[in-house]
């Protein structure tokens, strides 16, 4: 049976209460909005690229503990990464939260993000965990319309 403590890990709760990189990036060259209207989760992700490298990444918005902590920890993980490293990390993250891969063996790559593996036990919450990541991807791709992970 799924255990709440697997979902609401200390690190996740802590990030949801005190999110990191929670600010606007005035000089952002990429920005996108993610919005899950059914939940009411809405975030903006700001990116400042330096060539192929993410020089600065930050976010603002509101949402549930899972979506907010995911956004916060995503910004920490992505800062300094190249585009392809970031895309690969998103892929790994996606596999883990949807339960298609286990976090254990390969968790060095995911680092702290492995705490989100508990989400896979709560299928209705996967969309919360990946909202910020999809928003990041949309920002990279320069999408104008807001993205959603619902439906």
């Amino acid at each position, binding site marked *: 049976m799924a255990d709440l403590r697997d979902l*609401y890990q200390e690190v996740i*709760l802590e990030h949801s209460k005190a999110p990191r990189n929670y600010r606007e990036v005035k000089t952002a060259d990429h920005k996108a909005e993610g919005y899950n*209207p*059914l939940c*009411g989760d809405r975030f903006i992700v700001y990116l400042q690229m330096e060539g192929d490298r993410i020089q600065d990444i930050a976010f603002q918005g509101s949402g549930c503990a899972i979506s907010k902590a995911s956004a916060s920890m995503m910004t920490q993980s992505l800062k300094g990464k190249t585009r392809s490293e970031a895309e690969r990390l998103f892929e790994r993250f996606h596999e883990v939260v949807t339960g298609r891969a286990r976090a254990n063996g390969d968790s060095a790559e995911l680092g702290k993000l492995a705490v989100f593996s508990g989400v896979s036990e709560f299928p*209705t919450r996967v969309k919360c965990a990946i909202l910020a990541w999809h928003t990041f991807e949309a920002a990279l791709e320069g999408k104008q319309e807001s993205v959603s992970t619902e439906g």
Partner: protein
Amino acid sequence: MTTAARLPWDHLQPPAHQVVAGFDVERVRADFPILAQAVHGHKLVYLDNAATSHKPQVVLDAILHYYQHDNANIHRGVHYLSERATEEYETARKVVQGFLHAGRASEIIFVRSATEAINLVAQTYGRVHVGRGDEVLITAMEHHSNIVPWQLLCEEKEAKLRVAPINDQGELIVEEFRALLGARTKIVALSHVSNALGSVNPVAEIIRLAHQKNIPVVVDGAQAVPHMAVNVEDLDCDFYAFSGHKLYGPTGIGALYGKAALLDQMPPYQGGGDMISSVTFEKTVFNKLPHKFEAGTPHMAGAVGLRAAIEYLNRLGLDTIEAYERELLAYASEKVGEIPGVRLIGTAREKAAVVSFVMNGVHPHDIGTILDQEGIAIRTGHHCAQPVMGRFGVDATARASFAFYNTKEEIDRLVEGIQKVREVFG
């Protein structure tokens, strides 16, 4: 309510907390097989009745019986089963007529849902009577199903959608509503009971005000009929819509009441079989009421199930249901409202058994997940009423909505669950 006759099961009644005489909630619960199950290792506490309610065994039996014994297409065959199926279907219509206290059975149109009923009125009556520069007046507490059909109509006709505001308690501000009733207002549409807030609108007064200006009123009764007796003739409403599945009946069936004088003049909604009396490639003559609005083979089994649900409710007594649910609401409002950090959204004086709330520092979605792990089903999100969320400055709420099969013990479980949320989030 303490003078009811002694009933055979009175001696079984727990005396302390169920003061509605003749109502034994445990006995009633036994009629709903789905309630007797565990979810995540806990006894299910189902508090999402405003989304959909559960079905008593008599409804399930009626549907099965229909398919096992009576099924055939209606209004066409000369054969025995077709006759039986037609009779079942038309009897269901009469039962709905009685339930709403409509003057004639032909004023009851079977539809898929309250949503379809409202769309029907917008696309038939609305398209004929609303023109450029006209107005449709709704309220700020409507469900999306009573906003979007009117928006679509207004867009097509270059008409304006006007919205009467609500106060901080979630009540319609009647003076403001009255001020918005103008010379260009062609339709008023409002909910009888708000799904997100539970507020009961003073529909009789609203209808009287609108009728003073000869404006017809469409009432969305989806959240009202499960909780109170409704009399469309006393209300004098022009249209009244409801869904079967919120009324302990099956999904996919609902009804629209319309005054015959209006329905007669309206163009059909959809074309097809059953809604015509004769067809040539040059000219089609439409069938009489109510069949003019029921194109295609309808949901006969759904109508049969709806009839069984209404008869079940009639046996329990809507007054008894209302009195019992009022107790549940008072108890839940008090117990949930007194939890530190919890704010109730929607505190109208006239309310159905819905408790919407938000919690300091915890998103409703997280509340929903934690309660679910305790076996407690509530709804979280915007409840298809995003403008209501905006009015109260929240993105979402957690909503516990009650039925007559809920108990005070279940409300205690809800309160314990909310305390657990607080433990998790510190």
